[in-house]
């Protein structure tokens, strides 16, 4: 049986959420699922991968992998691929980067951010283009299909039957050329920059509708009244209205609060990817047809600059009474 190889990214808790989504996604191909782990994996990782249906875990370790070098990782992927017919990773910056290297090495096409497999044989996939507002159906006709799986293409779910994976240490010879672009040192992020945001029970989200850097006072007051955190869409940080560490979405924090209040956020797929796990979503938007409104559980139609102050006042009134 031919196989699909998944490059698995890890954090302290095991395989990252997006990597577990990717493992879930590729089980739909009906192939044997192999995983590649680079460097030291956290304890319990192999069992976790087995629960997600992985039958073989390739492990690349050694001097070439003590700090990140995309080309070295790609060498490991190629070595682990063996006769796999599909090679994937999560559509993260790292996943897309390594797979692009792999595609160059194998001389094949690469599809970034796939959300759906249209047909298995011949392999045809749909992937996000135009920031997720459209899908491109694409044929992958090479001997090895290389694609990344977009975040939230599916929910992570363990396999029906758990496997006990065989661990296969990889012997990869990494030439010096593959280590030319290598991390020489790292600096930690600002302490607890987004810690509060990621664990907040309530996140007040703000988008372009805030109107400018001065448009956040009422939103911050609502955040304060609800004991929550402020989260913003990418346009808000790109325009410099709020700092990057407040960004929610594919390139920001992923949040899953009890309540997400989306104020003036249209609901682009990248933002949705960062907050769709919220238990309840309340959208405040002038446009009743905005994706955020149609996907929300509750909505108020109108200008956030009129609605949010009224909500704040009502909250204060009731707490005083």
């Amino acid at each position, binding site marked *: 049986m031919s196989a699909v190889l998944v490059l698995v990214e890890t*954090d302290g808790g095991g395989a*990252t959420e997006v990597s577990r989504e990717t493992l879930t996604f590729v089980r739909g191909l009906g192939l044997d699922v192999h995983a590649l782990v680079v460097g030291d994996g956290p304890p319990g990782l192999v069992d976790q991968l087995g629960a997600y249906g992985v039958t073989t875990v390739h492990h690349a370790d050694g001097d070439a992998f003590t700090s990140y070098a*995309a080309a070295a990782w790609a060498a490991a992927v190629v070595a682990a691929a063996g006769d796999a017919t599909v090679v994937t990773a999560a559509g993260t*910056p790292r996943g897309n*980067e390594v797979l*692009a*290297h792999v*595609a*160059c090495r194998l001389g094949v*096409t*690469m*599809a*970034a*951010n796939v959300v759906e497999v249209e047909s298995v044989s011949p392999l*045809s996939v749909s992937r996000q*283009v135009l*920031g*997720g507002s*459209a*899908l*491109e*159906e*694409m*044929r*992958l006709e090479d001997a090895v299909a290389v694609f*990344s799986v977009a975040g939230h293409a599916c929910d992570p779910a363990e396999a029906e039957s758990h496997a006990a994976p065989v661990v296969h240490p990889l012997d990869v010879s990494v030439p010096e050329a593959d280590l030319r*672009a*290598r*991390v*020489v040192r*790292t*600096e930690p*992020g600002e302490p607890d*920059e*987004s810690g509060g945001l990621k664990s907040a*029970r309530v996140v007040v989200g703000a988008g372009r509708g805030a109107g400018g850097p001065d448009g956040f006072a009422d939103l911050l007051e609502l955040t304060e*009244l*609800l004991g929550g955190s402020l989260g913003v869409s990418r346009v808000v*940080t790109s325009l410099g209205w709020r700092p*990057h560490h407040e960004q929610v979405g594919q*390139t920001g924090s992923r949040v899953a609060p*009890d*309540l997400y209040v989306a104020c003036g956020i249209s609901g682009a797929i990248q933002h949705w990817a960062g907050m769709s796990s919220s238990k*309840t979503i*309340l*959208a405040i938007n002038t446009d*009743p047809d905005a994706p955020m*409104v*149609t996907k*929300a*559980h*509750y*909505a*108020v*139609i*109108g200008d956030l600059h009129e*609605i949010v102050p009224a909500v704040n*006042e*009502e*909250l204060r009134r009731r707490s005083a009474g």
Partner: protein
Amino acid sequence: VLVEADASAYGPADVAAAIADVVRAHEAAGTTYDLVLLGNDASDTGDFQVGIRLSYLLDRPVVAGVSTLSVDGDRVVARGGAPDGGTEIFEVPLPAVLTVMEGGIEPRYPSIPGRMKAKKVQIEEVAPSGTPVGAGRVRLKLPPVQPSQVEVLGEGPEAAGAVVDLLEKLGVVR
């Protein structure tokens, strides 16, 4: 340099090949490039690979997704975001290819005199060589629309009462 081509027939490998051709042609004519800078990904096609493909064609090291860079002698020091939210620092021998991550960099727009001068610059037009391999695109389509389950609480500030009722029901009011 303007590469005159039918963009719709071009996939990421074709774009990389066209850029590599220009770099090689200029180098043959005596202009060498220590750095080739590209965006990390196109906001329309979102391929995430042109810069990396270019680095293979030119046999140069590549760092993807950098946010700042500085040249230090025969090396370039590039910084980019790490998966854990920190920063990764690369020191790469020149010549190299870097792809720049969107966001975090303030664009510096050219001055009016600069723009006037730019109008007089001669643009080198290049016809691409070879037949493009394309993007493998079958068709574009819209994502499936989920049926909306939204409950509209009201319009405008008059909805504040209904909103706070909901907040209380959800137990998120302090």
